[in-house]
């Protein structure tokens, strides 16, 4: 079943070039997403995209409500700004996979549980 049209887009960051996100958390989140019926964007590493100012960051930031599974909200917010693609003040949820448990993060990403999501 498709998500409602007003549901936020989902962006998952795999943090592929460092070991700072616990592997069991990101693997669980990715597994839950791939087992769901939800369409989503998966990026290898938001840091790497910001460093080369990937235009996709503009699409993520400017495409309406979005839920981003990545790391600390302060880091994610300023990463987007560093690429001159600032996230809007409203309509952005950031799930911190560095501190959430695998189950909390996955539940927050698919929207069944919003309590552990940090919102900026």
């Amino acid at each position, binding site marked *: 079943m*498709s*998500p409602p049209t007003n549901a936020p*887009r989902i962006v998952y960051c*795999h*943090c*592929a*070039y*460092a070991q*700072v996100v616990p592997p069991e958390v990101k*693997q669980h989140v*990715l*597994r839950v*997403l*791939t*087992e769901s*019926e*939800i*369409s*989503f*964007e*998966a*990026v*290898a*590493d938001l*840091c*790497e*995209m*910001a*460093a*080369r*100012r*990937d*235009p*996709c960051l*503009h*699409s*993520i930031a*400017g*495409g*309406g409500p979005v839920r981003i599974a990545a*790391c*600390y*909200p*302060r*880091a*994610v917010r*300023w*990463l987007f*700004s*560093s690429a001159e693609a600032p996230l809007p003040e409203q309509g952005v949820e950031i799930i911190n996979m*560095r501190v959430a448990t695998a189950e909390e993060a996955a539940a927050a990403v698919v929207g069944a549980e919003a309590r552990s999501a940090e919102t900026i």
Partner: protein
Amino acid sequence: MSPAAPGRSLRILLFEGSGSRPVPPADRFVMMSTLLQRGYAVTSVRHGDPVTPAGRRGPFAVLGRFTATPPSEAQDEATGDRVFFRDLEGTAPDSVASLVEGLQAESGTSKPGGWKPWFPVIDYGRCTNCMQCLTFCLFDVYGVSADKQIRVQSPSNCKTDCPACSRVCPEVAILFPKYKMGPINGDEVRVEDIHREKMKVDISALLGGDIYAALRQRSVDAKQRFLRERDDKRALEERRKCLAKLQQQLDIPPEVLLALPSQDQIRAKAERAIARAEGLLGGPPGAPEEA
């Protein structure tokens, strides 16, 4: 290795909408995790949901279990970009990476990966534009914008795993998202963090006026001891211990400590950066530091 130059990268769409059959979830997971680990971004499209916002540029590859044979290549009418289609029927999930790497080469897009994206990110909500990071950084990562605002000018110059500039920032405004501990990793800044970070700066000052002078003096002392005692092993050991202690306190790679410039050099560097920003040297504000 430096990051790929700003340019086009191959985007991947795993398409399971109209005209294609679903991919088994276990295969979907393997395909996506393999591609992500190799640095590719993947959009998982289910039921034709519009997850790809308008305005995206660059070639992309559409992978799926198509019910009818698609063309191997087409052109995006809006952008003129090349669009590749590949049927995954009969393709083992862990072979998708080689298929995509072939398309990446064919499309002439940049090869992803190969660089740990380690660079500072400025929290402008905290930054006071004091320029301490610019004067401290040995690698010309920082620059000054036309409006005299500090900015990260050359992220790929940053020394991997070196968070030294964040240590001298009095406002804890410099993040390294891949750093292991807060608040440098982007965790919220608490009052005690500000005190702790300031203490670290003070510790370096207490070593002898400033960290540079202290290091130079330790180096001179070690050389004098070497000359006096003709004991090279002891002098080297002393230097190693000093550097190890500083490295532990500040979490700075030893090769960075060994390359620290003098205070005069860093003052001159700051003045040059500001002058460049004001256009006095004729170059654009973001021009790289001369050697």
